[in-house]
């Protein structure tokens, strides 16, 4: 391997190429840091108004962001609620009579050999 034989074009592509990849992804980062702010703009404004009326100092960002732990707690609570619903039963016990439908598969009639019987 001899780096001296590498021409200037290759060096340019190497440096510029990596730089463009960086720029492209930094650009995406900028956009995706801004998008949530734009999306929550209306909610943020409403919260600010509400807080001003209630005359309280609250950090609005904390009210907007739901962390993973909060989500997990909500999910767990919902899970328990829906699962426990099963325990609240009507307490009416109904015994259903078991009825067997006729099936020729187990019929004794077909298990006899009738060949030698006179007709």
């Amino acid at each position, binding site marked *: 391997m001899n780096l001296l034989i590498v021409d200037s074009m290759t*060096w340019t*592509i190497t440096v510029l*190429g*990596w730089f463009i*990849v*960086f720029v*492209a992804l*930094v650009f995406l980062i900028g956009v*995706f840091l801004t998008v949530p702010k734009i999306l929550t703009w209306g909610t943020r404004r409403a919260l600010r108004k509400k807080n001003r009326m209630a005359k309280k100092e609250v950090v609005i960002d904390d009210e907007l962001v739901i962390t*993973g732990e909060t989500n997990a707690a909500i999910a767990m609570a919902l899970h328990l609620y829906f699962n426990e619903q099963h325990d609240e039963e009507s307490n009416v016990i109904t015994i259903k009579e078991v009825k067997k439908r006729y099936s020729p598969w187990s019929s004794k009639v077909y298990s006899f050999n009738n060949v030698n019987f006179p007709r």
Partner: protein
Amino acid sequence: MKRFITLFGVLSLLFSLQFVGGGFEAFAAGTGAGDTFIDHASKGLETFWNFTGFHNVHFTHLIMIGVGLFFIFLAIKYDYEPLLLVPIGTGVILGNVPFLEGYKIGLYEEGSVLNYLYFGVQQGVYPPLIFLGIGAMTDFSSLISNPKLMILGAAAQVGIFATFLGASAMGFTPQEAGAIGIIGGADGPTAIFLSSKLAPTLMGAIAIAAYSYMALVPVIQPPIMRLIIPKRERLIKMKPPRAVSKTEKIMFPIIGLLLTTFISPSALPLLGMLFFGNLLKESGVTERLADTARNAMINIVTILLGITVGASTQADYFLTTDSLKIFGLGAVSFMVATAGGLIFARLMNLFLKGDNKINPLIGAAGVSAVPDSARVVQHEGLKNDPNNHLLMHAMAPNVSGVIGSAVAAGILLSFLM
């Protein structure tokens, strides 16, 4: 009935007796074929022998068949990327069964079935379809919740450009060097896509190198991680990612598609399909299409891609010194890419404060190789602290590595085509 069968048997025995002990000549005289019957028979057998693999075999074929069997062994025994290595390994065997050329059998013979299937690789049809499936099965929410981790995906692309430089220094043409460099992107479909455009003759070696090293991610990455990241930094716990709204998830593929393809239009087939697949998933109204893209379609294309890429490694085309160089460069590029991601993650930590600090191990996931490198990060994290789960965090640089390598492929394509 029994009598009839006995009579028929005796008659056929008498008929066949004439062929034993000079009976051939008698039969030939009887049918008027002269003494050429034996000649014909021996000629036929000789032609048949010439057609068999035993006659055409060369030791290089046996080496490649051994490689194919080794791939299948790795996939079955050690579970290394079995969905890729089993088709590729079988393809390697298929492509190296010796045959007589000129009968539309081999992959490189025009009009053969394998050649038709190979069309999808040659013209870069399969990789975008694979990307469609990947898009339809990828959850970008970890990336959307913490977009700054995307920079790690860019940092790890240093592997591509360092290998490009290395390949140029080893005497490869700029186009070939570009195609070899993309191995550092650790992304099979992107490697196939770029090499089919820039250096079709090296595509077999590049694809095999890319997929082999992707399968060996659990072997290559951990030592580099331990070397670069000190123990106390490996223990950093990251705060859980915030919940991402459905609107953000829908907007991500649309904005991502527009931005990345405007910057690098050459990567349009790859990035377009990736984000389209993700839009199918996240829109919530095209579940049937998303389901097909992430299951049936990607499976079909993976089979075709694997078998044809494997079969493209015919010994006469594959076993060259260039292939050996490509394998060497591929290994180096994987290591450089991993190191690049890790070092950049440590650098990022210098500017981050408090609980915003990141665990530098996730930098290794920036090399793409979805989801294996993220799994390796999770595994290493758990080794150091059994309560430190890094998988979700590692998925962010992991998927941004896919975007980064596709953008890099587009850049190389636009510079070198």
